[in-house]
């Protein structure tokens, strides 16, 4: 069923953390439609939650009047997730390395790292009307999203 590609599902979400549950439920539905379950489904869900939480917290600054765009699609074996916010944009390269010893005990700054770890590819760009657009891709045939965490 991995060649089942009904086209992207698009949601516009108010900037509320409760909406992460709705978005994750939609993601899980798409994953199962495309024959994916188990561990990868879990890790893609974690990446999606991180992306949406970033858009709500850092992009839209928690303003419930600002919306978050979510598209879940991709063709063939690829899952493509796009998350956009209505904020002022940000510079992803300015995010400190959470693995650096001086950052190890910081209480924030790990979200993008988790997205990079659990997805195959993530890119940031500016939205056409401002804000940040995050695109994440995952090969649904990949075996593990934790990239060997348990053997580390």
């Amino acid at each position, binding site marked *: 069923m991995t060649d089942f590609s009904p086209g992207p599902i698009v949601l516009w979400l108010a900037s*509320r*953390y*409760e909406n*992460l549950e709705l978005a994750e439920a939609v993601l899980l539905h798409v994953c199962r439609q495309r024959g994916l379950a188990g*561990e990868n489904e*879990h890790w893609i*869900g*974690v990446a999606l*939650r*991180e992306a949406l*939480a970033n858009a709500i*917290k850092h992009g839209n600054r928690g303003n419930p009047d600002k919306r978050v765009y979510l598209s879940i699609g991709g063709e063939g074996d690829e899952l493509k997730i796009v998350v956009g916010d209505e904020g002022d944009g940000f510079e992803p390269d300015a995010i400190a390395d*959470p*693995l650096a010893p001086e950052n*190890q*005990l*910081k*209480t*924030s*700054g*790990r*979200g993008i*790292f*988790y997205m990079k*770890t659990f997805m195959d590819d993530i890119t940031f760009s500016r939205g056409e009307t401002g804000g940040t657009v995050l695109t994440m891709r995952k090969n649904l045939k990949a075996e593990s999203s*934790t*990239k060997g*965490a*348990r053997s*580390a």
Partner: protein
Amino acid sequence: MKTTVTTRDAGEVKIIELHGKITIGAGDLQMREAIHAALAGGAKKLVVDMKDVSTIDSSGVGELVGCYTTATHKGAKLKLMALPPKISDVLTVTQLITVFDVYTDEKDALASFG
């Protein structure tokens, strides 16, 4: 699964039991409040029981790190027990698994305090 956080005593050790998601806007603040309440009550030995945690995100991890630092500054010990594989993975990829004292079960966790 609804997130719940409960605290119980095992001798002089406070066991903080987490159930469900420890994520932004859900269990992250509940966990912090429970741990801070135990510390405010004078607890010096704390174990966070994670066996029923289904998901943790960067916010939950951040709160856990913050609680660890707060406990240490107060002269208390905060340890973790019964990490499900997915929760262990999340701590492993950010190398935090080496920061926390992690135990398989309550017996080992309690014994570690000596």
